[in-house]
Structures are given as C-alpha cells and as structure tokens.
C-alpha cells in the first residue's frame, strides 16, 4: 500500500461515518437533523482534505475550503428557519479532535508553503464553524 493509498484509506473513515448520519437526518427528530447537517459538512471537509492529499492534487483543497465556508453558513441559515440550534457535544468534539488529527499530519506531509497555509485556514474555519454552531446556549436567533 503506497502513501497515497494510505491517505485515501484515511479519507474512508469520515466517509463511512456519513452513513449513520444520513440515517439520523432522514429519520431523526428536528434537533438531530440539524446536528446531522452540521456534522456532515465537517466530515465532508475532512474527507476532501485527505482525498486531496491522496490524489496528490493540492488544488483539490479548494473544494474543502468552500465546504468550510458554506457548511456553517448553511447550518446557521437552517437554524434560523427551524428556530433551533442545538448544542451538540458530538459535533464539538469531532471538530476539536478530528480536525487537528487530520490537518496536522497533512501539514507535515505537505511541508511549509502556500498549501500549508491553506490547510491551516481550512482547519481553523472548520473548527470555528463547528464550535460556534454546536456550543451550549447557541441559538440561531428568531426568524425575521
């Protein structure tokens, strides 16, 4: 198994985690669905970062960058419409553990440079977005 295969195998982990999340989104109560939507963008961002490294194409990180920007935006917009922004330890800890566990090895693999700055930016955005949308007492605000 080559290194690139190793990265792709790592990308499989967040990808497989999406399965149960889909089940929660499709069948769970309103709160779970929003948590699910939040978790999906986080996991997708991680999978995309790992896949970019696995394919050896740094330019694929642009997709992860867009996910890290639009994911929290989408969650907050949903929260505004459903009038609920549940606190979720699951999302928070997935972000706080999963993102560094993904981004730091990637940074080591890419070495210093523009690509690494972009990786760190994506990581910071993913953590910030997930923490803001999942922390206790958070609220999307009332609709207007």
């Amino acid at each position, binding site marked *: 198994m080559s290194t690139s295969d190793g990265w792709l195998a790592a990308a499989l982990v967040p990808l497989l985690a999406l399965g149960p999340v889909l089940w929660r989104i499709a069948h769970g109560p*309103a*709160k779970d669905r929003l948590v699910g939507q939040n978790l999906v963008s986080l996991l997708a961002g991680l999978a995309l970062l790992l896949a970019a490294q696995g394919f050896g194409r740094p330019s694929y990180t642009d997709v992860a960058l867009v996910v890290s920007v*639009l994911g929290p935006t989408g969650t907050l917009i949903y929260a*505004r419409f*459903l*009038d609920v922004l549940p606190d979720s330890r699951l999302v928070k800890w997935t972000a706080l553990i999963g993102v560094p566990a993904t981004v730091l090895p990637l940074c080591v693999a890419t070495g210093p440079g523009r690509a690494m700055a972009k990786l760190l930016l994506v990581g910071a955005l993913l953590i910030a977005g997930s923490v803001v949308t999942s*922390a206790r007492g958070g609220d999307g*605000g*009332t609709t*207007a």
Partner: protein
Amino acid sequence: MSFRFRLWVFLVGAAGFAVLFAVACFGLPAFGSGHHPYGVRAVRASLNHHTANVIASVNFDLRAFDTLGEETILFAAVLGAVVLLRQTQDERRKTPEPAVVHPRVRRFALLTLPLALLVGLYVIAHGQISPGGGFQGGVVTATALHLLYVASDYRALERVRPLTVYEIGEAAGEAAYVVTGFAAVLAGSAFLANVLPFGTLATLSSGGTVPLLNAAIGLEVASGVVVLLARFLDQAVEIEEPGEDEESGDPREIEKPRESQGPGKPRESEEPRGCGRPKESEGPEASGASRDDDNRDDKRE
C-alpha cells in the same frame, strides 16, 4: 387520471426503462476504460491556448457559444422568477421584527463574511488555473452575502444590498459576454473566438478571453442568485397577502421545540406592527375574502 392509474403507468414505464437501461449499461464501455476522442482533443486545444484548467477552456473557449445559451437560460429563469414573485397590488409589506441573535453567532458571521466573499472571488478569479470559475464562484459569493442575514436579520441585509445594483449586474454580465463575443468579430475573427494573446500557462492572465468571459459569468451568476434569493426572502419574510393571518397561522408551522429558545427571548411575533391590521382600508374585504377562501377549501376537502 386517478392516483392508482398514474402509479400503474409509472410502474410499467419504469420497468421498461429499467430493463432497457440495464441492457444499455452492459453495452457501454466499462467504467473507467474506453477512449475519449473528444476529451483528448479538448485537452490538446486547451493547452494550445495556454489554459491550465481544461474545463474552463471547454466552457469559455471551445464551447463558448453553448455557454452563451446556458447563460441566457439562466438569465431567463431569473427574470421569470422575479416576475412571478413581484409584489402584487393587494399585497402589503410589513416590517419584520428585528431578530435576536446570539452574540457568538453574530461575531462568527461578521468575521467569516469578508473571508467567505474573498473565497468566492478567489474561486471566480482562478477559474482558468485551478478548479473553479464563474459559475461556481458566483454561487459561493451570493451565498456568502447571506451570512449577513445570519448575523443580524433581513432588514440589515436589505440595507447593505441595493437590489437594483444586482439586477443591473446580472444584465451587465450577460451583456459583457455578448460584447466580448462581438469584439472578436471586430478583431476580424469569428463570434466569441479567442483573439487575445494567450499568456503563459497557469498564470492569472493566461487563456486569452477565457478570464474575461469567466468574470462576466461570475458577475451574472452572483447577481442572479442574489436577486433570486432576495425575491424569495421578500415573499417569505416581508410580503403579506390579504387575509394572511399570522395569529391563526399554523402552530405546527415547522416543527420547533420552543423551549429550546433562551429565556426572555420574544418569540418572533409576526404580527404586523401598527399598519395594516384588518381595520384599515382594504381590511374588511380582505378578511372576508379569506373567510370565503376557507369555506371553499373546507368544502373541497
């Protein structure tokens, strides 16, 4: 056509389709194999024009005329939606209550907003080099602008978003595309031909007319999506039909656990303030009409 009959028609058609499609699938070259004569030629043509992103080259150079068609469909669709969603005479605007937003959410949204806009513009600007382009970046930029809606409320978004500018921007994007096309004609070539110097591969100015057309599309898509979302938001948040009675509104509206809201937070009271309760001008007819409406609905059910 009854529901059952329709379902049967579908099932028969679907079974036929499934069989034929499966047969066709096994006739196709296996997934991941086969040769792609057009793909190979497109790559060669794109490299000849020094465009690193072959997809952008196909869209804005080789098939630029087709993209004009796509762009026109987009333009027409936005125009149609805007016409359908305009405010009619019997509808009135109400001012929605300002929203209450958690300070952390507000701070996050305000901090991310410039970054998100920057990402959108980056995706547009790098269209001919790295993955991205006017179509994708336009949508990202337009969505990013709505972080402002998340940060405070719709009124704030309206204040900083002069809709007319975006309507003009959409038309300007379409016009710029056509003008670039005719400029090629004036330069003694064909409509939408790539007449500019190609530059060096994988730099911002490479690709001749590709970056120009890309920017035109980016402008059009971004403005178009902003206008569309604005019209939908108008309808959902501000415009009120006669007889649209918020208080008897569906309590199930969208399943929401009320108790999850912070204490002391007023539930969004959608009732119009001051102006336009049924006692005024067109009020009585309006509520009367709505009552008729209800009766008709009841009978039908």
